[in-house]
């Protein structure tokens, strides 16, 4: 079985604990869900580059997550808070039953929930929430399905933004060229696993 790329939702250095949140989707995540406390799993990581928050202090920031793209934003909000930013989180899910970490986010910052089918929170997409809020922000950070990232990239094109991209990966370390994305750089592409998965929104073409 191949390794699965999974983002880090949170970590606690004092107790050497790493938190990952995943959806049981196929064979790999099903196997992971059947592991027992105290057991050992083989992990290669952390790999790639996360959100770069240097210099982002005392500013207004919007954090936008969609579905399985929500987890890595949790620790991000913690870090943004610790750097005295004014953070708004907008999290989109398919339906009421697929919502997770609502309370955890609300404990950290002002959080809006949207569902595609309108069964909870705002009836619509994260981009609809952004439009209705009409706030102005200095930066945005986003992680979610490619379609959502594309819409966000387009909607917030005037704002300095960073997006974390998903793709099927092979090696996870940049050797196999499975997870490339077109980019505005010398090479014309980036390797998502190695160069990213977080990129400046202007750098990559989704």
């Amino acid at each position, binding site marked *: *079985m*191949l390794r699965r790329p999974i983002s880090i939702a949170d970590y606690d250095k004092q107790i050497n604990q790493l938190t990952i949140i995943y959806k049981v989707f196929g*064979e*790999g995540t099903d196997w992971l869900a059947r592991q027992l406390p105290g057991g050992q799993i083989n992990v290669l990581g952390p790999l790639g580059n996360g959100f770069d928050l240097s210099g982002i202090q005392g500013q207004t920031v919007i954090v936008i997550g969609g579905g399985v793209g929500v987890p890595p934003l949790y620790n991000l909000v913690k870090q943004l808070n610790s750097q005295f930013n004014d953070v708004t989180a907008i999290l989109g899910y398919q339906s009421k039953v697929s919502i997770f970490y609502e309370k955890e986010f609300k404990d950290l910052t002002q959080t809006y929930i949207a569902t595609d089918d309108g069964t909870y929170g705002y009836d619509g997409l994260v981009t609809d929430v952004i439009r209705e809020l009409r706030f102005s922000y200095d930066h945005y950070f986003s992680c979610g399905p490619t379609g959502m990232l594309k819409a966000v990239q387009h909607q917030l094109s005037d704002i300095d933004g960073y997006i974390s991209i998903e*793709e*099927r*990966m*092979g*090696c996870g*370390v*940049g*050797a*196999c*060229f*499975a*997870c*490339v*994305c*077109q980019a505005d750089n010398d*090479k*014309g*592409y980036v390797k998502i696993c*190695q160069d990213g998965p977080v990129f400046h929104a202007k750098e990559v073409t989704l």
Partner: protein
Amino acid sequence: MNLSVQLGGLTLKNPVMPASGCFGFGQEFSQFYDLNTLGAIVIKAATGEARFGNPTPRVAETSSGMLNAIGLQNPGVDQIIKQELPFLEQFDTPVIANVAGSSEEEYVIVAEKLSKASTVKALELNISCPNVKEGGIQFGTDPELAYQLTNKVKNVSSKPLFVKLSPNVTNIVSMAKAVEEAGADGLSMINTLTGMKIDLKTRKPLIANETGGLSGPAIKPIAIRMIHQVRQVSNIPIIGMGGITTSEDVLEFYWQGPTQ
């Protein structure tokens, strides 16, 4: 224990090497272990010009294996020589460069350039990539074309030449014989088998290229069988590959006669 092997004029410390395409140009894996421990390093395929490759998704897991359709993404032979090979000079491990193209002329140009690079100790002729529309695979399925191409590449290169065979043929033995007669110093067996996976949600092929090359433990018995068949008629060295994950797998290939 002395594990060194002779491979078409090269002496390797041991018979273990990565298969081309699985290992990039070596930098990434050098973070995880000392590349000096390898018998050889086989770098990703080079083409005449830079290639972006296929759209994504490019990989999918299958039972005991995976499909890939990268599409020979690479920066082009000149950039590989300039930007990638210098890093590999620091290792006491011979570099085998994989040569690809979409026409006979392109293969010849790439082979000539790579054979002149001092870091490159041998060439591997990739006539078996199933994931590009033009070139590659037709040279790997027609013995006559394979003979001609091998012959032309051999004429422009003084370095040992290994020809990587495709399993997507009805008669692997005739392919092996053709390239041996054309002057190949060895064979690499096998490249991936063409496969497809359907995404049950979209009801369409999961890989953007639709088909991909199947690798992994699923293809190991096929590799062993094909090597066994070729071994009966050919004495040139065979670099064996296909689903090798354990030392037992290495031995299974080893007792079959190849050198990887």
